[in-house]
């Protein structure tokens, strides 16, 4: 059998398990181009894998079955090597005993995160100055008290209505009003006239809340979020009694970048400045990978090292879609930040908040 064609030689690499040994021998004696001198050695180590990586890639084999088999073999080989390396390391570690180097930290998305140049340095003066003069400075200096108006889109259904009511119990000094087809642009001047500081609009789709517009009133920034996984109070497991009227504390976690900082301040400004510790309630906004998780708990300190928390109140997740400079204006508004999926979601390790 005298076969000198290249594709057949490629078969040879894979098909040791099939009955092609005869062919292989003859071809390998010829020493074809791509496989080179490997074939002669292959004969000797018939059952074992090629000693060095083949110079062709698995994807060049046209036959699906053979390609698949080659790929499986490649994988097995890699796995074997990995196991060997692991065993070696383990032995070394045991041999060294105490002097062994510390265990390596596994890679997570958080510690592989692409460094964002807008990350806020806690001591940055420019940012401190900015925050002293931005729209929330009045609140943070204690001049204004938050007063929140919660409303929905047209014709809200049961779940959204209940969600609004529960939100109103969580946020002190919040009022729920129904929309009844009014235009937001006309509501806003009226709210300003009545001294509201915040306007929350919950958008509904198919009987479920799915969007949140958070508008700071005396021409403050407007943030538009997407809501997901809403859990109402009665769907919570092991929940406590209803929240009381005390103002809760606020925890803001993980808002590192500039954008995250401004969003964090927006959330903080929803609640009154002085929390009543008597109430032992805490509202948490935790940012993880651009998702902001909201939770509402009641805590109790069992001793100085242990604290018990019990979840009350609704829970939901927010994802920022856009941040607009002035009050709500979809046509002529000046957008400070807009979620552009193609640019921003391209890298798995890059986050905005």
């Amino acid at each position, binding site marked *: 059998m005298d076969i000198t064609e290249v594709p057949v030689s490629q078969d040879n690499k894979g098909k040791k398990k099939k009955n092609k040994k005869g062919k292989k021998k003859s071809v390998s004696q010829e020493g074809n181009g791509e496989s080179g001198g490997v074939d002669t050695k292959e004969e000797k180590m018939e059952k074992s894998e090629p000693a060095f990586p083949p110079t062709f890639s698995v994807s060049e084999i046209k036959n699906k079955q053979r390609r698949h088999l080659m790929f499986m073999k490649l994988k097995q080989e890699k796995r074997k090597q990995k196991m060997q390396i692991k065993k070696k390391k383990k032995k070394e570690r045991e041999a060294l005993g105490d002097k062994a180097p510390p265990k390596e930290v596994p890679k997570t998305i958080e510690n592989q995160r692409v460094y964002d140049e807008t990350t806020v340095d806690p001591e940055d003066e420019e940012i401190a100055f900015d925050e002293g003069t931005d729209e929330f400075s009045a609140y943070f200096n204690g001049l204004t008290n938050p007063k929140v108006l919660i409303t929905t889109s047209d014709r809200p259904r049961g779940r959204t209505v209940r969600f609004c009511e529960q939100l109103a119990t969580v946020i002190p000094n919040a009022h729920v009003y129904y929309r009844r087809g009014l235009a937001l642009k006309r509501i806003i001047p009226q709210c300003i006239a009545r001294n509201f500081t915040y306007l929350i609009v919950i958008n509904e789709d198919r009987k479920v809340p799915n969007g949140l517009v958070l508008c700071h009133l005396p021409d403050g920034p407007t943030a538009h979020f997407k809501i997901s996984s809403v859990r109402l109070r009665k769907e919570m497991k092991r929940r406590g009694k209803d929240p009381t009227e005390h103002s809760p504390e606020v925890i803001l976690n993980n808002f590192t970048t500039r954008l995250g900082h401004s969003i964090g301040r927006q959330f903080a400004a929803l609640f009154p400045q002085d929390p009543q510790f008597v109430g032992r309630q805490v509202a948490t906004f935790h940012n993880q990978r651009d998702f902001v998780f909201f939770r509402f708990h009641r805590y109790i*300190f069992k001793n100085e090292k242990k604290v018990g928390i019990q979840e009350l109140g609704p829970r939901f997740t927010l994802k920022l879609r856009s941040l607009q400079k002035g009050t709500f204006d979809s046509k002529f508004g000046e957008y400070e930040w807009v979620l552009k999926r193609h640019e921003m979601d391209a890298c798995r390790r890059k986050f905005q908040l």
Partner: protein
Amino acid sequence: MQHDDVIWDIIGNKQFCSFKVKTKSQGFCRNEYNVTGLCNRSSCPLANSQYATIREEKGQCFLYMKVIERAAFPAKMWEKVKLSKNYEKALEQIDENLIYWPRFIRHKCKQRFTKITQYLIRMRKLVLKRQRKLVPLSRKVERREKRKEEKALIAAQLDNAIEKELLERLKQGTYGDIYNFPVHAFDKALEQQDAESESEEEEEGEEEEVETKTKASRSKGKSPANGSAVRKKRAYVEIEYETEPVAKSRATS
């Protein structure tokens, strides 16, 4: 020669008319030049030599009149007259153009014209009101986001993070003196505060030391909200102290 009756005889009842749509109670005519929209002897544009309609194009209304002499050229059969945008003037125009025509057609044309102007007005009004913008959701993207959210939730370890934060706040003394805990915690807190070297805090630290050492170290009871019960125990320590301004919202990373 146009024999209206013959035409109606054929398409009206006996044979097929491609514009006719029959329902249980009534028949409709889908011909675009039909005035009323029903399939009748007097409203059929094919079976009437003298016929007129009103049609609207981009907000402009026209009066179309059938010129039967051109029945051989259907594309040129209809005469178009532009009607004025003023409602009354347009009605007069219809009247003067259809002056010796049968009452039925004049009446129906005017009715149709009224309906058209009404819906044009409504369209203009709606544009000024709030428009609902429909944003399409991409299923793939939604699925991906859901999965990302689940993973982020697991990575967040919310309960631990909240507990850690609360304990830190306790250590840093944001809760002031509400909670009463055994000595070594306060010593730890004191060391931290001393390192900061602010005189107020040192004073407070001393006060706390005095208080706690005089009492048996007991872990907190069920309700720290009972401030009154705690206060009774340290009634005899009468030192005025100020609670530090609460830095409540801190962005921690």
